[in-house]
Each structure stands twice: as C-alpha cells, then as structure tokens.
C-alpha cells in the first residue's frame, strides 16, 4: 500500500476535496483575516475594540460557558446511550439508531420550532402540568438558559453519541469478562476498563459538540433569553444590522482562534487522532 504509485492515485482522490477546501474555505478565511485588520489600511482597531470593551469579553465568556454546559450535559446523557448501542446485538441497535437518526436528519429550524411549541408558557408541557394540578403558574422553560440548553443538547446529542459509539464498539469484550472473572465489581470494571478505553470517544464527541456549540446561532437566537447573547449573534448583528464587516471578521477570527486552541488542547489530552483513523 505504501508504494509510490498508489500514493499518487490516492492524491488524485483527495484532489477535488483539496481544491474545494482551498477555494471555498482557505481563500475566504484569508480574506476574512485581511478584512479584520482593516478594509483600506492595516489597523488593529477592531481587535483593540474587542479587548477593551467589557461587553465583548463577557459575550465570549458567555459563549464558552454555554458551550461547556451543553457539552457536559450531552456527555452525561450520551454516554449511556452510546454504551447501550455498542453492547446491543446489531438488529436491536439498528432500531435504536433510527430514533437517533430521524431527528438528526430533520431540519434544524423545524426541530427548534417544535421545541418552542412544547416549551412555551402556554405550550404542551406547561398546559399538561397545570391540568393535572402540579403547577399553578406556568414555568418559563423558554427565553432563558434552560430553553437554549434543552434545544442545543437535543440537536447536538448525535454528535456526541456517534464518536463514542464507534470507540466503545471496538472495546474487546474479553477484557471486561476477564476483569469480572478476576473479581472486580461491575463498577470497578467500568471505571478501570471501560471508561479509560472510551476516553478517545469521549474526547472526540465532546470536542465536536463544543465546537458546534461555540458557533451556534439559530437556537440561542430563538430560544434564548435576554442575557444569552452568544458571539455568533454579535457577529450577525455586525454583518447585517451595522454593516461593519471588519469588526465582524475580527470577532469571527477570535472565535476561530479559540476553537483552534481548544482543538489542540483536546487533541493533546485525548489523543483524538486515533479515532479519526490515524
């Protein structure tokens, strides 16, 4: 496989993807970088403005906080599901997969609006709880952190489950049997064998969910409350409502750099490249 001839053919195969990325990702990214340093002449004004305005710092911190919350909840909910999927016989697992995939294939906006119908103060959940007498006053599930979190966790969960599933699936069952045979309790086995061997999947899933959360726009905009302002919302304001594209680019660059840094740290601590097949 490592002969020169085959690697040339392999290169031909990646060529379309490479050209596509260069044209539609790398080139615009370079333009974005240039734009963030001033449209006419070089200036650091945009970056100085971000760093010197407490508002933008708190928006960035807010976005990171939201992303961490969403990632943590996805992990807690997603791990048992991934574990179950990996341990079930194929035919049963595939039925469960359908339940994960169908919402995953449904349009993001549709799903967000569906949640809004359920969660609003005159919505299904509140109505039901009031009918059966548990609630006197409707609970506000929407237009606050709860709403955004529910919406985002629901949408991002598959991105957590799939990488974890693929890693847990690869764990050799004999290791678990051996551990149990040698007298370890199920909990010990889980903590000492299953969990360490799933580390890569946990890392990859968390990273994916975290990155996607950082740039999430629709759900926080529609379901978020007043103070759930994320960096992508500020970027959209600058692009559309203000028309200051230089400043919008600078904000986008900050987001980009944050995500790249995060990826490096994650990669280093979880050795994710193993999951991508490296």
């Amino acid at each position, binding site marked *: 496989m490592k002969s020169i001839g085959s690697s040339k053919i392999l290169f031909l195969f990646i060529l*379309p993807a490479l050209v596509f990325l260069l044209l539609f990702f790398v080139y615009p990214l370079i333009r974005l970088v240039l734009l963030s340093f001033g449209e006419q002449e070089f200036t650091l004004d945009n970056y100085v403005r971000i760093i010197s*305005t407490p508002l933008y710092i708190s*928006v960035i911190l807010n976005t990171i906080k939201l992303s961490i919350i969403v990632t943590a909840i996805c992990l807690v909910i997603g791990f048992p599901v991934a574990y179950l999927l990996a341990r079930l016989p194929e035919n049963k697992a595939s039925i469960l997969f359908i339940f994960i995939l169908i919402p995953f294939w449904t349009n993001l906006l549709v799903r967000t609006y569906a949640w809004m119908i359920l969660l609003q103060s*005159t919505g299904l959940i509140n109505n039901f709880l009031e009918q059966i007498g548990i609630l006197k006053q409707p609970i506000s599930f929407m237009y606050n952190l709860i709403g955004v979190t529910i919406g985002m966790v629901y949408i991002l969960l598959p991105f957590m489950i799939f990488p974890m599933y693929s890693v847990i699936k690869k764990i050799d069952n004999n290791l678990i049997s051996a551990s149990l045979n040698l007298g370890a309790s199920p909990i010990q086995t889980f903590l000492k064998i299953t969990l360490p061997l799933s580390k890569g999947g946990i890392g990859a899933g968390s990273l994916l969910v975290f990155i996607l959360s950082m740039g999430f726009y629709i759900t926080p905009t*529609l379901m978020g409350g007043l103070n759930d302002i994320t960096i992508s919302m500020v970027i959209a*304001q600058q692009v*559309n*409502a203000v*028309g200051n594209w230089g400043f919008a680019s600078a904000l986008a660059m900050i987001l980009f750099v944050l995500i790249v840094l995060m990826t490096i740290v994650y990669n280093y601590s979880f050795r994710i490249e193993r999951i991508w097949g490296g």
Partner: protein
Amino acid sequence: MKKLLMSIISLGIVSILLIVILASCSKKEETTLVIATYGGAWEESLRKAIFKPFEDSTGIKINTSVHTSDFAKLKAMVESKDVIWDVVDVEGDVHARAVKAGLVEPINYNIVDSKPLLPEAIDSNGVGIVIWSTAIAYSEKAFPNGKAHPTNWAEFWDINKFPGKRGLRKDPYGTLEFSLLADGVNKDSLYPLDVDRALRKLDKIKKQIIWWETGDQQPQWLASGEVTVSSAYNGRIWAARAYDNQPLAIELGQGMMDIEWWIVPKGSKKRDVAMQFIAFASRSLYQQNIPKYISYGPVNKDAIEKIDIKLLSELPSAPRNFNKQFLANVEWWANNKDRVLEKWNKWLLE
C-alpha cells in the same frame, strides 16, 4: 476506482456546462426585471396591486426574489459588481444604511413623477412605497369591548393598571423610542435619542417583557396569551384579524412610522427599466390598490384621497393617523446603530 474517478470528473464537467448555459440564458432575457422583496403576504399584495398591472401594460416580466433585510447580501452584490437584483424593496433603516454605504443608484426624477408623493417619501436615492407603523397591539380576549386597554406607551409601561406580559422587539430600533415616549418625552423631540434614559425606563418592566424578533411572533403570542400587549406591525395585526379571524386590535396612536422604499442597487444592468418600474409603481392608480390587500398606507396623496373612509381609518398614512404618530429617524439610526447596539447588548447582559 477509475470508473468512479471518471464519473466524478464527468459530473463536474456537466454541472459546469449547465451553469454556463443557465448563466448565458439569463443574460439574453432583456425583458425581465428582478425585484427583491420581503416576501410573504406583502409580496403577494405587491404582485396584485402593482406587478401584475405592470407586466400587463409593458410586457416586461417581473421575477421576484425574497430577502430578509439583507443589507449584507446587497453590499456583497454591489461590491463584487455582480448585481442580480434590479429593484429592491427595503425598510427605512436599510435604505439609510445602503445610501450611506454608497450602494444605491440615484433616482431619475425625470422619469418618476414626484409631484403627487408625500414629501417624506421622496429621496434622491429612493422612492417610498408605503408607510407602515409599529404600534400598540392587544388581544381583545385580554381587553374585551368596554374594558380599557393601553392607548399610549406610558400605559403600556403601567404594569399595575394593565397587568400581563409585554411583547417588545429584541432590538433597540423602535423599542428605545417607545421607552422614551413612556417616560414623557415629546414625540417631536425624540432624536437624538437619550439611550441611557430609555434603558433606565426599560429596566422598570424588564422582567415583564417577552422579546419578539420576527413579525409573525406578534400575532402568535397575542393570540396564544403569551403576552397581553405588544409592540407590533400594523399590517401583521390587520392580517391576523382579516385572514385568521384572530381577536386582535391595534392602537395607532404614538406608533412609529416607517417608510418602505424602492431602491436600485448601484451597478444595476437595467437601470432604465428599473426607473420605469418605480415610476409606474408610484402612480396613484396602482398605489390606491395596495390597501385592498394589506393595510399599509400609500405615499401618493392622490391615491390616499381615493380610498374609502373605512379602509382609510386603519392606514398609517391617513391624515388623521399620520399626525398622531412619528416618523422613525433612520438617518440617526444609520449613524448611531453601532454605538447604540453596544450599549443595548451591555444592558441585555446585565
């Protein structure tokens, strides 16, 4: 594998050819005009009142494209010199920003007759289409006949007298004006806006506010009882009542009027046809048709005179309504939005 590669390459070639063919086709068609509008019921009304008669009398076909306050798309189009919109229908603030950014062709008033138009609707870079209003809407379920409802912004702010959640736009545009009116500022001395004062007044009802972002949320929330009173577009409330039989009403007093504009993007390849269209659309004969389909007020004075009294009473540009409201100062917003947004966002985060 070679087969796969070949099929990928041929697919690529075919699609490139297809694009070239499509592109050359659209260049050949000289007799179409592309108009970008906000879509929905509004475009439907424009089609019946203006587009259809224009097509019938000139033989020029109108294709529409929907945009969502797409200042960004307009800017990208003009800057890349690839203008595919010949005429764009924009809100006042988009108009002012587009003019400021140099994205708009001047209007040729040798072709467009400005004499019968309201002076507010004449601009060197745009011609008004209609006047609409953002005002106090309420549900008649919450305030049945005979029961007093909020009639001005001070009462809108009065949570004790009129309990219930308030709907306001999650944007400083308009919301700050209403807040200042509630605080006792005269409608003629609103601008330049005292942003800090407006935010302080908003603090008083911050917990009672549910923030809308799109026009469809206004009638929806009022009808479902999510809010009892809301700032809302008069056309949306009118449509919810007329078409969906929702028990909603709107109080135009102290409303903020906005002018909707026709603009021609800079570098449009069909500038002359575009001017011809705008001239056609501004005539009283077609202007007076608009309120039959949507309750927006014509800007042509002759048209206003011809509309029957009952219909007229609901239109923002009817003389007796016009004077009760104020016109949004979009130039002020174009120059200050960036600064105001920073304060606004900070206030939201507090």
